[in-house]
């Protein structure tokens, strides 16, 4: 299982499509930095069906005033949870 991180909003950069194309069936995607904007209910559709595999970093949501605006299907983790995700994954790939 690979953990993919994404730090761009799907409204600005198409790199999210590359990340999705490279994901295996059990891989996970963590939205960080400007990427957390993708957790908004109106934007989360860009990620299609990622049930239980789509995460967003709490600290980055909070810094942007978006913590209370996340789509329900996004799993919110803090920095400690980010480390846990990297422990559980065989490797981590950064998309930017």
């Amino acid at each position, binding site marked *: 299982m690979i953990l993919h991180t994404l730090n761009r909003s799907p409204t600005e950069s198409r790199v999210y499509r590359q990340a999705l194309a490279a994901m295996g069936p059990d891989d996970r995607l963590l939205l960080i930095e400007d990427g957390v904007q993708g957790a908004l209910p109106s934007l989360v559709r860009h990620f299609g069906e990622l049930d239980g595999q789509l995460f967003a970093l709490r*600290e980055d949501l909070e810094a942007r005033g978006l913590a209370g605006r996340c789509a329900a299907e996004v799993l919110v983790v803090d*920095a400690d949870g980010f*480390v846990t995700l990297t422990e559980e994954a065989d490797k*981590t790939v950064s998309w930017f």
Partner: protein
Amino acid sequence: MRYALLVQGGPYSRQAAHSALRFAEAVIARRHRLETVFFYHDGVYNAARLAAPPQDEPHLVDRFRALHEVHGTQLKVCIAAGLRRGLLDEREAARHGKQGYSLEAPFELTGLGQLIDAGLSHDRLITFSP
């Protein structure tokens, strides 16, 4: 576990270095060993010894230095990426006939081979990009 980080974003311009330092603290808090931070692409600018950010902002160079001093983390700067961007230690400055230097210990100029080594020999390599 033994962790390595790869930092590819410059300080202040992008969040990458901030994210890397926040992640580094969380790694250490979870009792892993943060062995190496490798700086590549614009990440090498994080080693600029003359950085003078406003006092109410985090001083990234000092924060990285603290990782070395407190936790023994090695701070490795890609030499090829650094020279192009003006980051020279005293030895490289002398070799290029320049006065002064822009990078100081505990940051060290190393070859890219050390990134490959870190990636293959550590348990985890996490990249923070601009």
